[in-house]
């Protein structure tokens, strides 16, 4: 069965491949720290036949070695944003942007083969439910070796050797045995490691991890998060991490984007945002999450529901649920304005309010 | 078995001009053993590989075949055949009187023989010398030379049935114009010219292939595309065949369409109803629609031109719906009558007959029975009142009478024969075929039969043969189709 795929049908780039560092080995050609690997400006995503705007005006930058987190309630547009970056909009979804740049490559107007060259080499992704992203009838090793051969121009034995090394580098024990396993023979944690190995196999500049740890239990989740952190420092990888679990994001990321109803409502260094949120929604979110606080106590909630796409109010979208909402909040759309060093917030009353993490939200 | 397609022109010194292959779309036999063949139409194919003491000429008269001559004794109970000298079976073994005797005896005495009933009057067969065969009869019967031209008289090589009689079913052993090279059931039979045949000189075809008859819808395209050289076609395809550049021959045959009537079943237990039935049918219309005009209205079992055809019975029951209605009323059915018309294929004739009967108040309900069960249901159990049938004719006229009208007659479901008819038929059997009285006796019997018997004859069905232009005309044999003189190419 394994004898069939012999020739990669893409342009193979043996020269480039040969230069690629072996995972775990000395990191060469590492991007200059701080060099942007992903620049997004004015991203808009519409869904459905009515082209309802589900994400609007999203701008952010991921630098080499930096981890950027996207947080927000369910349905706030985190996945749509990631998929737009990955060039994988679902059926009925379309994305436009002013800038969409991956380390110098303009992603806008990239054609099929262009995306192919990026994916599996400079762009990697991991999702929730890792098992479903692997072909159930091929061994996981073969699925890792396949892009190595297609993109890296390795031959069968080289690809296998490299794949085993990669498996080893993501902390899979007995990588030789894992190579010949089928997806259903591996646990969720192992599958997520396999996906990560595949994602970093092409030595990407950017790794997108959308809810990559959500279905895992805490022990495994912690292991996977550690792995991501390690890869980031070792390879200078830019990480875009999505989760609705603020605790996870707070622990892993450098920067934080808080999404609400398709908009970024707050943007800033994670530690600062967590310590002193500037937007009432961020504050509520922090309060609700109760970061790492294992004490009995009243459980705070944010009253009401986030609006469905297209049904958000014209003014501040959070206003109907905001305990600080005032007359001014409902009129015109609110702009995302810079606030201090490297921070921005989308709130009319940002300057008037003093918000804090410990302030419990309304019950 | 017999291998390959290699054409062997060996030993055909007398086969000057024989060549080519004729592909005939007809029907393959139920068995290649004439004694066990169970279908009437098999005789055409069996006659390709077997020969009889006699054969029938184009008009149906017995003429010499293996026997160069024959003669009856004075009281008609002893028939002596004189064989041609030097006859041989296809495998080369001699065909002498002993062989003929063994073959006839097998047909008479084999417990499963299907021809035995036709030979019941033969007391014994003698072979006094190599070329003389004597049949001793229990009663005078001048029909035997005719009868022996058919399946009953086809001579089978004793060597074959003495060794393995069952093998004959797929491997004929005869002395006919052709011999079988290969046979695939339901597919085709490949024959080659038999140089040993007594009349091999008149066989101009080197090879002969027989195929099952194709569907009416595709037969013409089969001929056009060269799948067949000759094939029987239905009347509806005549125009198409001609349009496709094929030659179409209309050969008169003994086949006649007929309704079998069971006079023991109501309402036919009343003779007036039977007569009403005869008048109620518009045979002209039937010929027009069923045969597309290629055929003739007929009120009797024999076609025009055959010795048995009675000129006095032409137009006997000309379509007369009023009379039919009157007869029905007379029979006590003024408001019409209900009956069941049994058939094996409902489309066409039965539909039309049904519609015609409706005109005179006979409400016929069509019932379809499987063709194979027809024998059992209609002929053996006599359980049906009215059945659409076709009579294929017989080699001997007396035999035809027996089948149609005899007390044990297959197509006489009522199982009764009026004495005057029996007498007339007896007279036929007792009249030598070459006697000048013979036609008169036969026609008299026909006249009695059509007036006293319930069978409703409808029309004669010609044998419609379409052929490619490369094939010379097919001789018009009324009873058994023969291919003497036919050429290809």
């Amino acid at each position: 069965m394994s004898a069939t795929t012999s020739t990669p049908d893409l342009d193979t780039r043996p020269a480039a491949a040969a230069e690629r560092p072996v995972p775990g080995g000395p990191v060469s050609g590492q991007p200059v720290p701080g060099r942007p690997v992903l620049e997004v400006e004015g991203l808009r995503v519409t869904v459905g036949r009515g082209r309802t705007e589900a994400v609007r005006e999203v701008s952010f930058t991921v630098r080499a070695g930096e981890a950027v987190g996207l947080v927000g309630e369910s349905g706030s547009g985190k996945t749509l944003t990631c998929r737009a970056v990955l060039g994988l909009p679902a059926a009925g979804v379309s994305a436009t942007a002013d800038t969409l740049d991956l380390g110098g490559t303009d992603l806008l107007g990239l054609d099929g083969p262009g995306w192919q060259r990026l994916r599996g080499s400079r762009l990697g992704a991991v999702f929730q439910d890792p098992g479903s992203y692997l072909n159930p009838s091929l061994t996981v090793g073969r699925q890792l070796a396949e892009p190595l051969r297609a993109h890296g121009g390795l031959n069968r034995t080289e690809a296998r050797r490299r794949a085993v090394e990669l498996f080893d580098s993501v902390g899979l024990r007995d990588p030789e045995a894992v190579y010949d396993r089928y997806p259903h023979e591996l646990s969720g944690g192992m599958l997520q490691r396999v996906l990560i190995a595949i994602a970093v196999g092409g030595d990407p500049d950017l790794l997108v991890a959308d809810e990559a740890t959500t279905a895992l239990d805490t022990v495994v989740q912690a292991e996977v998060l550690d792995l991501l952190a390690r890869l980031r420092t070792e390879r200078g990888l830019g990480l875009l991490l999505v989760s609705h679990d603020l605790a996870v994001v707070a622990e892993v990321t450098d920067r934080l984007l808080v999404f609400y109803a398709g908009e970024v409502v707050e943007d800033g260094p994670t530690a600062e945002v967590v310590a002193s949120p500037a937007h009432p929604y961020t504050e509520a979110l922090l309060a609700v999450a109760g970061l790492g606080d294992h004490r009995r106590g009243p459980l705070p909630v944010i009253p009401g529901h986030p609006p469905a796409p297209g049904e958000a109010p014209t003014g501040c979208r959070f206003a109907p649920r905001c305990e600080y909402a005032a007359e001014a909040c409902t009129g015109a759309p609110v702009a995302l304005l810079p606030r201090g060093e490297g921070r921005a917030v989308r709130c009319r009353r940002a300057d008037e309010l003093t918000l804090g993490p410990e302030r419990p939200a309304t019950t | 078995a017999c291998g390959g397609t290699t054409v062997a022109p060996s030993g055909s010194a007398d086969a000057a001009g024989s060549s080519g292959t004729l592909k005939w779309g007809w029907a393959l036999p139920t068995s290649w053993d004439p004694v066990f063949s169970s279908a009437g139409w098999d005789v055409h194919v069996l006659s390709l590989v077997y020969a009889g003491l006699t054969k029938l000429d184009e008009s149906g008269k017995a003429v010499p075949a293996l026997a160069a001559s024959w003669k009856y004794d004075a009281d008609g109970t002893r028939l002596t055949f004189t064989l041609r000298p030097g006859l041989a079976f296809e495998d080369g073994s001699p065909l002498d009187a002993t062989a003929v005797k063994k073959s006839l005896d097998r047909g008479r005495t084999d417990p499963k023989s299907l021809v035995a009933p036709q030979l019941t009057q033969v007391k014994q067969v003698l072979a006094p010398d190599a070329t003389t065969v004597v049949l001793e009869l229990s009663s005078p019967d001048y029909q035997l030379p005719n009868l022996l031209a058919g399946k009953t008289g086809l001579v089978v090589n004793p060597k074959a049935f003495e060794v393995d009689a069952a093998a004959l079913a797929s491997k004929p052993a005869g002395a006919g114009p052709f011999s079988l090279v290969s046979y695939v059931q339901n597919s085709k039979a490949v024959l080659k010219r038999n140089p040993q045949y007594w009349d091999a000189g008149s066989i101009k075809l080197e090879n002969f292939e027989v195929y099952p008859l194709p569907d009416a819808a595709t037969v013409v395209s089969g001929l056009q595309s060269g799948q067949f050289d000759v094939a029987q076609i239905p009347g509806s395809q005549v125009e198409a065949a001609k349009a496709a550049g094929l030659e179409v021959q209309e050969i008169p045959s003994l086949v006649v369409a007929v309704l079998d009537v069971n006079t023991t079943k109501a309402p036919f237990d009343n003779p007036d109803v039977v007569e009403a039935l005869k008048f109620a049918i518009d045979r002209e219309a039937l010929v027009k629609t069923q045969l597309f005009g290629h055929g003739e209205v007929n009120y009797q079992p024999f076609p025009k031109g055959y010795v048995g055809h009675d000129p006095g019975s032409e137009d006997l029951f000309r379509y007369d719906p009023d009379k039919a209605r009157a007869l029905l009323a007379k029979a006590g059915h003024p408001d019409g009558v209900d009956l069941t018309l049994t058939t094996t294929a409902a489309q066409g004739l039965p539909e039309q007959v049904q519609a015609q009967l409706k005109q005179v108040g006979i409400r016929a309900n069509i019932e379809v029975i499987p063709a194979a069960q027809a024998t059992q249901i209609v002929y053996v159990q006599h359980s049906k009142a009215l059945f659409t049938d076709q009579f294929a004719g017989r080699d001997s006229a007396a035999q035809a009478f027996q089948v149609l009208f005899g007390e044990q007659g297959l197509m006489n479901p009522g199982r009764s024969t009026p004495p005057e008819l029996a007498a007339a038929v007896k007279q036929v059997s007792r009249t030598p075929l070459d006697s000048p009285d013979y036609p008169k006796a036969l026609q008299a019997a026909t006249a009695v039969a059509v007036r006293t018997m319930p069978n409703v004859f409808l029309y004669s069905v010609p044998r419609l043969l379409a052929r490619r232009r490369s094939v010379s005309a097919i001789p018009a044999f009324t009873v058994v189709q023969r291919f003497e003189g036919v050429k290809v190419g």
Partner: protein
Amino acid sequence: MSGAALPVPAGRAAGWVARRAVRTPRSAGRVLASAVTVFLLSSVLTFGLGAVSDANPAAAVLGETATPADIARLDHEFGLDRPLWAQFGSWLGHAVQGDLGRSWFTTLPVTDSITAALPVDLSMAGLALLFAVLLGSAAGIAAALRPGGRLDRVVTALCTLLGTLPAFVVAIGLITLVAVQLRLLPSGGYVPLDQDPAEWLRYALLPALALSLDAAAGIARQLRTSLVGALRENYATGAVMRGLSRRRVLFGHVLRNAAGPAVTVLGMSVPMLIGGAVVTERIFNLPGIAQLSLRAAEQHDVPVIQGTLLVTVAVVLVANLAVDAGLLALNPAARRAPSPAGAR
């Protein structure tokens, strides 16, 4: 849906069953048990069909001259005076040894008739199967490449159209066009494969094509549906994310997973191709099993009816086993089995 549904390993219990599953004695035994049971049940049905018919050999063989004594003699000769179960037992017993009795009508051994007819069906069905697979998968894949695109709509329309035509209309249409109008191929008849392969092909092309169109349409539709479905699955996205080309994703990943239902459809069309081609055989004058059995049915030749049905069932069962093996080969990992707990 196939005959002996081979137990496709599924569920937690089978989670560990990997590609060696095909060869484990347990599943092999189960497959065999299934196949044998199906065969037995089919043979009961087949035999029962003859048994409930009131047909008897006397009617077929003796015809017009039958007397009650004759009928009784023949019934005895054919063993019809024994109890049904005994008849069934000896019939099946002989059948598995290759003896299907003798035709009532021609007195030829049924086995011989079938042996003569079967190659016709097998070679024709084989060719038709080839056509069906080639045409069907080409059309199905082409349509799935761009769901809703022009090609997709053309293929779908064509499949729908083919599905609405009775088989004989297709066959006669092909004859009229190819054999009569274009005079490319003969309109009917048959030359055995072992006699002259080239001639065989000339004769077989048209009927095989007529036979295959329906199956091809079925395969195309099924393949298209499952391909489109599979392309939406996460693992297809996963393959795309690995930077594989569309072609590679389709052929290397999606096709093998999506081919299952199409292969099943293929398996289901085997009975149609082998025994169900009555109309095609009739129109093209092929001396196959279906013709044999149609004729036998018309003549109430019970041994032949039973024999042809039984042999067809056997062939179909074998074909089904092949399909099942094919499915397993396509899908060695017994997909959808949830990951066994504690595998770390």
